[in-house]
């Protein structure tokens, strides 16, 4: 299914992403006979089936694009069960954990499954994700979701307290990811899950206090962890817009003023325009995410 492989046309049972605009997308499970209501009108699923991914689909009050699912689109459209991780952090996590097809990963907690989908995409089909979620309801929902997304072969969800009981597997993981309230209490659990030949660890924390304790424990003599690094990523997305900057009325008919502004070389005639200077510029949104969380990375390499 979509997250680990590609197809060209929509089939019943697929999850697709309906694109109505840059900030208006939602996931849709395609089911024979069903109809979904959108602000652009009804979408009859039967009409989507066999529809080509990436093409327009016309509703009564507008048109949408039917998109192939990817972990990145899923991240921005998924139903939030918790705070989720966003794409800049996810990318850095996958990269710094050295994940690739075949990697075995332990994750806690599963949360809304935003990162889990991205991990599975990267480690499938030969790798495996063991993901632990303390909260029973969330664990069940995540498990169901993975099944619906055709990912059950690559992941097991465990409802478990990782701090008390550790990870369900020992010495098999290439990488461990922690996103729990007390990551510092799970350092030995992480070490146990990791391969004796070594691996990588990442802990995500919104607050610096957790980071401080986590680093202290990672650096403790005999922990087996090395190369502790802490990052924070701020990703800014801008819009390219044409802006018109008005010109002040400086009386350029006056020769004295004109000579000051234009100069001898006449280098920048643009600023002698009467009404407005026009340029293309990058406009940042008024507010952006200034902080998502801190990423702590370390290498496990017991002596």
């Amino acid at each position: 299914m979509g997250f680990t492989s590609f197809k060209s046309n929509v089939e019943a049972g697929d999850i697709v992403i309906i694109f109505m605009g840059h900030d208006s997308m939602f996931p849709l499970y395609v089911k024979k006979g069903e109809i979904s209501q959108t602000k652009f009108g009804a979408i009859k699923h039967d009409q989507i089936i066999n529809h080509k991914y990436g093409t327009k689909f016309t509703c009564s009050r507008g048109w949408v694009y039917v998109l192939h699912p990817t972990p990145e689109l899923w991240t921005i459209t998924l139903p939030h069960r918790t705070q989720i991780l966003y794409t800049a952090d996810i990318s850095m996590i996958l990269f710094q954990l050295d994940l690739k097809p075949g990697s075995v990963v332990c994750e806690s907690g599963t949360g809304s499954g935003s990162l889990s989908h991205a991990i599975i995409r990267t480690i499938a089909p030969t790798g495996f994700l063991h993901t632990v979620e303390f909260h029973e309801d969330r664990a069940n929902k995540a498990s169901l979701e993975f099944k619906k997304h055709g990912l059950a072969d690559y992941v097991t969800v465990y409802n478990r307290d990782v701090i008390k009981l550790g990870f369900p597997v020992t010495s098999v993981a290439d990488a461990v990811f922690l996103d729990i309230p007390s990551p510092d209490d799970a350092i030995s659990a992480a070490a146990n899950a990791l391969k004796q030949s070594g691996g990588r660890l990442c802990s995500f924390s919104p607050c610096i206090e957790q980071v401080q304790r986590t680093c202290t424990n990672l650096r403790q003599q005999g922990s087996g962890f090395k190369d502790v690094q802490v990052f924070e990523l701020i990703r800014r997305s801008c819009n390219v817009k044409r802006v018109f900057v008005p010109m002040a009325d400086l009386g350029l008919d006056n020769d004295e003023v004109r000579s000051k502004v234009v100069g001898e070389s006449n280098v920048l005639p643009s600023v002698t325009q009467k009404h407005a200077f026009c340029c293309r510029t990058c406009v940042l949104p008024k507010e952006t995410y200034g902080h998502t969380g801190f990423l702590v990375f370390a290498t496990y390499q017991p002596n």
Partner: protein
Amino acid sequence: NMADNEINLNTTVILERNSVLKAVKLVANKVIVFEKLRFKPDKAVGCNYGTVFKVTLTPQRSSPWCKRTIANGEMEITDQDLDSLDTNADDAQGKDNRSLVDTHGKSQTIKRENILEMKGEGATGEEIVKCLVENSSSFNEKTSFSQNKYLKKKKKKYLSYIRIQRPNSRLICQLYQEREPAKICNMRMETMSQILTAANIKHGCNVGVVETCSGVVLGSVLEKLGGKGCVVNLHNGESPPNLFAISHFNFPEPDSDKSDNDITMDTVSEQSNGCDKTKGDNDIKVSGKKRRENRLKHQQRAWGVLENKLLDAVVVVCKFHPTPILLCLLDLQLSRPFVVYSEHKEPLMELFVRLSISGSAINLQLTDTLTRQYQVLPERTHPHVMMSSGGGYLLTGLKITNS
């Protein structure tokens, strides 16, 4: 000296409720409407700046023959600590919320209608909060931490504390930044602060200002001159721009007897006439012969500063393309700074290049500043989750001569 710190009628003050600011002139017996509160300011007179008042809620009675009678609230001095009501902290982060189940507000049996009814019956904020707590099925299950947070949130909503502060450049800047950023060209406080230092604004200097920031820049420069020096305000076209914010600073009026202040806002519209004519208008409402004379005197002085090239600094913070404006005003004294703000980078890049090759400026710097605000609370310390981006750009430099 302590009397300086007293709230007086006929001055502008900054009102604060739930971190929202508003500048308002206190007039005897005149109702102030602010953040859903209605009250007369008279009781505040004589209190110190910084005092927190409780304003009783306005009972809103509705009956068949009188849809809604709006009464005024009463002010009452209190020593409530506003910080302790602050619930902006995102306490949830970092807490163990693993076993929480979201009840989606189902735990509260008091509905919006009930609250309106209580208000109509003249219930106090305290009574409403108490009622909400008693009727919340989940309140007792919460941790004391969560109970506290819940109480704070409700208190903030139903108890009506306001603080009255003395206006200054910082608060006026903050007010515009948060409520009407477009009126100050989306400039932020840290940029304003850099404008004042880069332009080396100090007691007694002559500053040329071009701004379309509602007077916030002009007022801030005036504040830092401290009663001596001269600000030449140049504006576009015939009519003076909106300089409403100037009135928030409570500057002594230039012609009042109390004033030992040598400054006025001299608006010289000569720009449109090639710097060879003065023709002014003054935003401070003036009347009477003496005022007119004063105004003329000030305009002539400003004009003299311009004509004799006595400017110690030039500050341009406006919506217009800054290149021609700065080039026109580059007749400031040698080894003196100029500062140009623009919301977009491209016009400043052009000005940067133009000045680099002109040989009339050195130490050119095109900068932007990223400000990170931090929440520092036990177990919850992190940079603010939302960050205002795009606070514009500054070009600074020093006037020199190549010859």
